[in-house]
């Protein structure tokens, strides 16, 4: 009886936990390299970036005058920023089984190197890289962008 009551409690806890779990977004990528001052901007707050930290859709990467940061995304895309730079990840969708693919990034200032990943292979037209003055379309590509304010 006791065991049964316990298992019922476990089911109840799981049932409560399940919706919260379902809502948790999966990370778009992870920070792999940090040196100097580098930050993640999320929902208006700026936190120092740490190696291993998860990155989500709508986050921005920002570096100070001595900073660098490198991120690897879930689809193997890699992005790194030099000093005094900022890039915003507007969209990241990588769920091929559901037909959901897309990546949109805005290069706001400074220097960045982008190496395309699986999204660029599966659905190149779903990638949108924007600078203040242009849109960059990619086809299996390594590229570098410098935005001067």
């Amino acid at each position, binding site marked *: 009886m006791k065991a049964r009551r316990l298992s019922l409690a476990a089911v109840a806890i799981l049932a409560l936990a399940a919706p919260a779990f379902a809502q948790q977004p999966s990370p778009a990528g992870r920070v792999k390299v940090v040196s100097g001052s580098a930050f993640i901007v999320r929902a208006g707050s700026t936190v120092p970036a740490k190696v291993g930290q998860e990155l989500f859709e709508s986050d921005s990467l920002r570096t100070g005058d001595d900073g660098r940061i490198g991120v690897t995304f879930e689809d193997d895309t890699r992005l790194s920023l030099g000093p005094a730079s900022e890039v915003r990840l507007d969209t990241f969708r990588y769920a091929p089984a559901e037909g959901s693919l897309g990546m949109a990034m805005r290069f706001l200032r400074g*220097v960045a*190197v982008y190496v395309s990943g699986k999204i660029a292979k599966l659905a190149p037209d779903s990638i949108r890289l924007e600078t203040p003055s242009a849109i960059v379309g990619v086809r299996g590509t*390594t590229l570098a962008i410098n935005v001067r304010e």
Partner: protein
Amino acid sequence: MTRAWGGVVLVAVTACLNAACGPQRPRTPQRSGQDLVVLLPNDDGTTGKVEVSNPSGRVTLDTARASTLIAVGQAPGEVTELTEAEIQRIFGPALAAQPPAPIQFTLYFQFDSEELTDDSRQMLSEVLQVVKKYPVPRVTVVGHTDTTGSAESNVELGLRRANAVRALLVDVGVEGAAIDSTSHGEAALLVPTADGVFEPKNRRVDVTVR
């Protein structure tokens, strides 16, 4: 806001006067308010392709170190090739912060079985060796199927295969918490086929270490 890059562009131009820039016309320096886009060679030596466009025009970059300067309200500028030295000067710190390239292993199963082929079984310990070398390693295990059967049942089949490989990786010593397993079903074929086609090469599990 910051004008930190003014100095860098000046350095690049100065260097061109006395270094290995050769007789070629020096590239117009990047001015404030301009964006510079450069196509770099990929790690494997190939070079991709980039289209840079805005409402005023469009240029294609398809050779190594091809670049264009763009400003708001103006068509992308003439394509010019940057030297290796210029690229290092402008992008060196960003290039230095690139994470290591993800490495992918493709594992195959014996016909109609949950058992890996012998070759694929040997790959499990290679995966472990790579995991040991990477900073904060993550391992993604993705099951794939061919196009026989329904798309839904193939997502499930792919997940069963992925979970089988995940268990094997834990057996050889990869930390379970670092592994994500998922299924792409028949949505990411290695060998493109029509629906309903038996294709052993598509029945695989991709293990990526990043």
